[in-house]
């Protein structure tokens, strides 16, 4: 029996007990007892991690647009067998679809070919030859479920647990809960690569109601990864340093009359800003990487904005203590020509993703770095317009690797058509709960009060999926 099913039975049993509560203990307390009980300490103030974490940081390879599971991680021979035939109506009835609202529902079998890889026998598409090589590191989930069938709300949901803008994203929550482990870099960094045309909503890495320092900071894949990082033309390092010294000195004078603690913070932030002007470009300087390493990612001595380049940057960020790194790669929205599309995207991302996992492993960093690969939703087993696939909320694939993850395992199976989970559904809320758990955070305790409500990343949902844990 899957842990989630057990979980729900347990919940039900407990609910039954609760319903009897008020009849079973109706005896009252003595006054003395009342007094003494009142004096007990409450649970210690919440600090994070709540328990020993497996992962210290996350690198989340976010394949934006909705990567097709059928061309990557979920092989369905039945679809090939019934290619072009109608899919059973019993599956599709009442399911929210996007474009296929308007079209017949026909099975679409893929011909990309799959291979059982490594000792674990992970079944991975031949479009991802490099990831096939690290198959034994992956825990592949094939039953990803979401509530949102369109990109914008689905990105927002996948990242914030809510479909309307305004909630903090997972990276922001993690930053808020665990703080910043790096000296002079932000705790949550986002990078993008991939084709233009379909923007990703910035709500995906917004801090929502959490303090602004927890917002995902977007780094560019170039030598100057951050806005306003470079001093103005004509201002050399010495002048910048002199200026900041003067600013801080004058602020210290002001502090003596103003007695404002924010001044101390501001002085520190200016020091930090100055350090970042060196540390961030240094982060983006690949010249210290060995040729072998650079070649494994497929990059030169400078960031070039490619996914592989961002992966190498991510590893360098991980080394510097950045808590949550999210690499978006766009262009996975294949309503037509899905095989061609996935082939292109795979060529752009497969090498970098696999190189990252191998590189982390070789450096011993995979033990405490959680790597995630996935998009905002999966795609339909039915074709759209003969060659593409529509957005799909009922099934999709992602993988996790590294810290605390059951390497080489799989979680969840879909039905023969790949339409919906047959066992072990993995809802976005479960995903969030599980990732937080790996970071040593009880997802129910990571809360923030806003508009009078103690908000959580998992809202009122989410189960830690134990089978994914090592």
């Amino acid at each position, binding site marked *: 029996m899957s842990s989630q099913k057990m979980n729900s039975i347990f919940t039900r049993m407990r*609910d039954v007990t*609760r319903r009897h*509560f*008020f009849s*079973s*203990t*109706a*005896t*009252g307390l*003595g006054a003395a007892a*009342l*007094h*003494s*009980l*009142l*004096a007990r300490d*409450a649970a210690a103030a919440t600090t994070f991690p709540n328990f020993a974490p497996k992962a210290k940081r996350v690198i989340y390879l976010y394949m934006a647009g909705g990567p097709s599971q059928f061309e990557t991680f979920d092989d369905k021979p039945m679809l090939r067998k019934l290619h072009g035939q109608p899919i059973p109506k019993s599956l599709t009835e*009442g399911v*929210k679809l*996007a*474009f296929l609202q308007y079209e017949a529902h026909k099975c679409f079998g893929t011909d990309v070919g799959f291979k059982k890889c490594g000792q674990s026998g992970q079944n991975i598409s031949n479009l991802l030859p490099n990831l096939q090589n690290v198959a034994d590191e992956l825990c592949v989930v094939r039953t990803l479920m979401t509530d949102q069938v369109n990109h*914008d709300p689905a990105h927002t949901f996948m990242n914030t647990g809510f479909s*309307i*803008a*305004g909630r903090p994203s997972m990276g922001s929550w993690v930053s808020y809960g665990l703080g910043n482990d790096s000296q002079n870099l932000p705790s949550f960094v986002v990078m*993008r690569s*991939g084709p233009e*045309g*379909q*923007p990703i*909503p910035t*709500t995906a890495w917004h801090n929502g109601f959490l303090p602004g320092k927890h917002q995902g900071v*977007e780094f560019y894949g170039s030598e100057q990864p951050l*806005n306003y990082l470079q001093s103005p*033309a*004509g*201002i*050399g390092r*010495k*002048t910048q340093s002199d200026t900041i010294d*003067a*600013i801080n000195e*004058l*602020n210290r004078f*002001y502090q003596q009359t*103003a*007695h404002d603690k*924010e001044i101390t*913070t*501001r002085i520190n*932030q*200016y020091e930090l*800003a100055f350090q970042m002007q060196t540390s961030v470009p240094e982060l983006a300087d690949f010249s210290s990487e060995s040729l072998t390493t650079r070649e494994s990612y497929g990059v030169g001595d400078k960031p070039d904005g490619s996914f592989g380049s961002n992966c190498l940057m991510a590893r360098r960020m991980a080394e510097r203590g950045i808590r949550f790194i999210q690499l978006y790669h*766009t262009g996975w929205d294949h309503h037509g020509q899905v095989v061609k599309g996935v082939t292109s995207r795979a060529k752009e991302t497969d090498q970098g993703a696999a190189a990252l996992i191998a590189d982390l492993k070789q450096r011993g960093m995979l033990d405490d770095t959680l790597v995630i690969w996935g998009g905002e939703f999966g795609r339909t087993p039915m074709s759209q317009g003969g060659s593409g696939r*529509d957005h799909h909320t009922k099934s999709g694939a992602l993988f996790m690797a590294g810290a605390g993850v059951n390497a080489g395992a799989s979680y969840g199976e879909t039905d023969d058509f790949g339409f919906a989970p047959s066992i072990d559904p993995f809802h976005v809320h479960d995903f969030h709960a599980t990732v937080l758990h790996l970071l040593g955070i009880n997802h*129910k*305790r990571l809360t923030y009060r806003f*508009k*009078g*409500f103690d908000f959580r990343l998992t809202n009122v949902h989410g189960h830690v999926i134990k089978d994914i844990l090592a």
Partner: protein
Amino acid sequence: MHSNRHFFVVAIVCLCHASPLAAQGDIQFNRDIRPILSQNCFYCHGLDQNHREAGLRLDTRDAAIEDLGGYQAIVPGNASESELLVRILSDDPDTLMPPPESERTITPAQRELIARWIDQGAEYQDHWAWQNLELPKVPGTIKSQTIEGAAAIDAFLQQRWADEDVKPVSPASAREQMRRLSFDLRGLPPTLKEVTDFQADPSQSHYAEIRDRWMNELAYAEHQAVRWLDLVRWADTSGFVSDEPIASGAYRAWIIKAYANNMPFDQFSRMQLAGDLIENPTDDSLVASGYNRIVNTNCEAGAIEEEQLYKLKGEHVRAVGTVWMGLTTGCAECHDHKFDPISAKDYYSLAAFWDDLVEAGVYTPGDRRVPLHYVHDDSADSARDAVLTAEISAFKSQIIGDISAADAEVLQWEQETIAKLKDKETRVDFAWIPAQLPGPRVVEGEFDSIKIDDTFARETRADANSFYRHHASDLMTGYIYERSQKTDAEKDAWFVDVWIDRDDRPQMLGIQVSHGDYGRLGWKTANYETYLWGEDTSGTLVQSHSWSDPERVKRIGDLPSESGWVRLRVPSSQWISPVGGQSFEATGMAWLQTGGHVRWADSGMELRTDKATALQLGETAIRKWYETPWNRQVYQSRLEYVSKALLTKSDQRSDLQREIVREAFCEQSHPELLDRLRSLESELYVRRSQAMPVLVSRSSSQRKTTRLLGRGDFSDKTGPLVESAVPEFLGAIEADAGVANRLHLANWLFDQGASLTARVYVNRLWHQFYGRGLSETLEDSGTQGDWPSHLDLLNWLAVEFRDSGWNRDHMVRLLTSTTAYRLSSVPQSSDPGNRLHARQGRFRLPAEAIRDSALTAAGLLMQTSDIPLESFYPYQPLNYWERSSKVMFGSRHLDWNTSRTASQYHRSMYTFWKRQNIHPTMLAFDAPTRQECTAKRNITNTPGQALALLNDPMFVEAARVMAIRIMQTDASSDQERIDSAYRFALQRKPSARETTTLLSLLDQQRELFGRQTDAAVSLISIGQSPTPDDIDACELAAWTVLARTLLNLHEFLNRS
């Protein structure tokens, strides 16, 4: 479960007190108990009946003391007999409340409070925000004496100081008072003169005089408007992924104007919620109704119309809750509110107020959000607009309303038309852009419209060897993907009929086909293809322009040798290929000439009959949905909608297809009326292309319906339909007849709902002038919100506001007239959160005020009496949008076109506000994205702010121009110049040690730049404001560094 109890008997009682007042024995339910129960219990034992556990409810006293069969959750007067206490004190995880897996805990101090409250009788109180508003007694008043105005406010505060034995700090210095008042009122620093004048005469009357003068400035209205813009989430763009401009500029201007005129808050609100529903709506009231339309709208092709319509309702419900009611109404979308008495039914009933709005759930990217109202500069144009609109509407009903045709006649037309749609033999012209331009949204260049021999033409002239171009795009006749029309490389062609004056022949003629995605003009040069005949002796087309790339200019041949009417054609074999495999739709055309006098008639395509007919039929569908919001799937197919409908067997046509076939028939069978209609449309829309489009509310005759959805799921049809209503616990609207509409709602807010509306508003005003809200949760005055520090004062202010006729300026005067307002802000250790207001608040300035202050110090800030209708584009990091793929393909609107004129120095509130990507410096300083309503901005202090202030060219330029100002004073020494610098930036003199620090910085930099003139020149070249030629570059660079230092000071960034 009691077995472990004795372990704790020996524990020593040592409680930390949650509330000093409660500790003294006086426990108030609302202040002390409700927050605890609300946070820990109501989630399962509150209003939400679908989620209520064990049938127990603790949010009402009746339910809480109910006999549950020999025991009660609460036994008033007897905590130890109360099951509630037993449960929260239990050490058995199976019985402990709240349950351990909820991860909620009640602290010992809170337990103690609950026990004492029960012992004291467990009295409940109505929630403060929802009680009827009554004038509280002002402390210290005796019968014969009343304390009014600001003195009353002080009296409330002083009473608390006395109660809590707190001494207020001393008054702020005259300079500090001026800075505070100026920033609070205008969002700008005072001038040096304003400060010195007040220092010379710091009397109360002088203070009031200055204040009133400032309140009469536009800057006051602008600054006050910013908070409202945050609240109603005003932005330039639509929000979701495509995030494109909506025509919202006029609405922003209206808000500012309303502040400038001190429009009473009730009227102000009524105009926005229902400016289209009032009697005799005006331009202004319609513009104000834009409030209902600046919602986030989606245009994803896969989005489901019905679901999106419910999402739009959600936007309205959340907004009205936040903006006016301080209620988190949005929380009741999927279930009854957990804490406040708002049921899911209340949510949907509230949503139903917007059911009348004309809007679509899923829009087409790029197509402007509609309906629009057009504001013309000239009242004659407005009048003509109204006449034309009425005439067009009359013609339309005359044409479409004609049902006299016999079925046989209709059938015959259908058959003939279908035959044409299948005709692959003959050829015919498709006059895509008739001489009389059909509803262009983009018109560049001028022309004279003339009619000769019953033929329309556009007449243009150019001097010999000079170039002239006029362009029309985004037309009512739709956009064409021309490549899909090709059947023959030579016969298919672009054409234009043009008349050449034999006495004034041009040197060159040309046409340009402009393209874009989703039917709107793109911004890249690759979007244009240019074809020419003759010689461009002006040399224009060999150069690059935003609208032409020499690589994409093709000479087709010589000018026709004949004069008079000729046809220029570009066969498809000659068409210029699209760039990079991205071929977009043709959206318009430009007509070019070098020299000469010409008249342009129809332009279009020569096509096979089947192709041309299908395109021609598109006119009916385009007209039907023109400026009417419509679902993207239908709307986008409009050009071929009629032909597809006709080609569908008549018994298989949908209702909409049947309707449109009939309309097409009616139009085609009234050719004369149709011509007249086209002509009127052309006149109207050419006129409108020069007017200001404004997104407005319009009420539809066909209301949408709202259903009470289970768990917020739009596909759940089991719930009842609801009618518009306010949340039941707040009363009901008595609509005279029929359905309560937005106007009723607006009126209710200031009538029965006034107590709440007034409290919410004055609480936010207090925050604005004192640095914190009396209730600190400005966005939530519900039960989970912060208990007000001075409830009586809050109520007093609310009464004052209501009884003043919702006079905002009156309240601003009051709040700035108190003694407390003018106190120093030096913190007191006894009250770090300043809940007692024995000092003033201090906080970092909002993003806008920081840039505006820097520009003021430089003398660069542009202030005019005209309120800009359009946003401007300050310097922004290179490719902040493009590089990051933040812009949809082909959107002409979202090319960041840095403002190159004086508008670069507009006040920051006019910065182009793209919800997904607001300006990075604004973002760094906590400006909200305005995707959701914001009542209170965050205030953070980050290294990103330091980087922006140090390195963003807008601040570097400000420093440089301020340095020029410093150098141009008649000061005779560096010391005196530093004095000036301080006056410009901080309106004070520097101290001796400040001067010393800066003199040393100056010396260092002089020395440094003296050795690196290049660096100096680079630095002083930043920004578009000119530098005097005769200025010494090294000297200016050194002073720029000094000025930049001042613009980064904490003092510069703070209001104290």
